[in-house]
């Protein structure tokens, strides 16, 4: 019986440990009301102003020390590139942000959209990472630590915006590549990211997220004929730090409008909450089954003992 106790102790500690860990699930119940840290910065992207000059892409490449692109940044033929399945450009290991062109017949001119990590309030990548490689900083940026990354790529599965790219080309140190909001070089010091500063049209406004939301609604109110009455990212998947204003419906410029307002964690919580339940209930339940199932044998052994 001593050995059984030891095993039970080990099981109990494992149960306790995972129960403690899974108690994050308890916090997560209130998670969908987490609106970010109070002084969290954000960026409001006004797509009505973007002219598709790609200066932001060039500035990002320089700031983050990215490898040379396939084509110069002033080569607009990239807007006609398509990949698998007719999809437009996306972020890659060489480009943390891309601009795409959308030709919408009702508009006289094309609409351009800049796309990068949205730095969600409740990031799915962070939620899914089993080595805790992601951090939501209090400045608002979602950071990634390549030193602990194992390369399981669950974050790429989880991100609803298909943002993280993996440097598959590197056999020795493949890591995730994504926009970090210039945290190391700028955001930490209160400066705006390189793309925001470089943009000639000031498509992007940098400031506190809560202020940007107010500003965005003011802009819509000020010129209602110029904007769809919605700030994309205000509530999507629990809210993102990078938000968008657009003149045309968002689904026409490559946004997924079916994401809902729940952070991705909400869909996983049900299972995570069960884990400590199973850990604590199963031992007693199945030991009980065992005792019931072997009662005839136990009775026989007792009978034999009393006969002796």
């Amino acid at each position, binding site marked *: 019986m001593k050995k059984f106790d030891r095993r039970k102790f080990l099981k109990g500690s494992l149960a306790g440990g995972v129960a403690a860990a899974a108690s994050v699930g308890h916090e997560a119940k209130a998670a969908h009301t987490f609106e970010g840290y109070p002084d969290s910065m954000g960026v409001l992207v006004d797509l009505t102003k973007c002219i598709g000059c790609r*200066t932001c892409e060039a500035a990002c490449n320089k700031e983050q020390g990215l490898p*040379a692109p396939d084509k*110069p*940044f002033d080569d607009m033929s990239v807007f006609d590139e398509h990949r698998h399945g007719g999809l437009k450009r996306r972020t890659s290991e060489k480009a943390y942000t891309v601009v795409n062109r959308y030709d919408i017949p009702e508009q006289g001119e094309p609409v351009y959209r800049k796309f990068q990590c949205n730095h969600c309030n409740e990031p799915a990548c962070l939620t899914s990472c089993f080595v805790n490689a992601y951090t939501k900083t209090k400045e608002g940026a979602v950071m990634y630590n390549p030193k602990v990354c194992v390369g399981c790529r669950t974050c790429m599965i989880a991100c609803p915006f298909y943002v993280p790219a993996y440097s598959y*080309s590197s056999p020795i140190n493949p890591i995730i590549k994504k926009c970090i909001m210039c945290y190391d070089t700028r955001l930490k010091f*209160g*400066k705006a990211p390189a793309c925001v500063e470089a943009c000639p049209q*000031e498509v992007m406004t*940098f400031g506190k997220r809560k202020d940007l939301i107010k500003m965005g609604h003011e802009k819509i109110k000020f010129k209602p004929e110029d904007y769809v009455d919605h700030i994309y990212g205000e509530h999507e998947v629990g809210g993102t730090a990078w938000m968008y204003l657009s003149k045309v419906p968002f689904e026409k410029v490559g946004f997924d409008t079916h994401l809902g307002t729940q952070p991705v964690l909400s869909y996983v919580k049900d299972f995570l909450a069960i884990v400590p339940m199973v850990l604590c209930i199963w031992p007693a339940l199945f030991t009980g089954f065992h005792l019931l199932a072997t009662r005839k044998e136990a009775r026989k052994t007792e009978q034999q003992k009393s006969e002796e």
Partner: protein
Amino acid sequence: MPKKLKKICGAAVFLLIASLPLQQCFAQGPDTVVLETLAQYYDPVEFDHVMHVDMLGEDSCATCHHHSVGTPLVDENCKRCHEYGGETESANCEDCHPAQRFSADYLAEIEADIHLYHEDKPGLKGAFHQKCLGCHKEMDAPVGCQDCHTRTDAGDKLFRSGKYAPEPSESTAHAH
């Protein structure tokens, strides 16, 4: 009229007439403005002010200068508050639109100013481009980046263009 008085009157008339172009100058601003505050990736812009004034007309200052030179406003949204706004101290764009729009200092400044309405006032670069390009698009005027300012060497480097253009490469990995 005595000879001396005639001379004085003549000089006055002469001065009056001669000063007309000068008055025009002061009334209508400089002929050319060199915009060099933000020059880094592009050369400074030689902005032909007098051409734009001639094209748009005398009272069109508000088109670009809002109400800062005292001319009547056109935009209803602006008129709501600034109809009787009058001149400001300076008509120069950069005296109101900051060159470093997103510096930590400026952001702190606008946050501290609780009476500021135009929180989303663009910086100098944004103001120039939004104003100029907006109109240029409507008027079928030049809209290309290098139509107004040629790129510097630093600019070519940033855009990986010209002599910094990348070599077309073949990679072993297949396209993703």
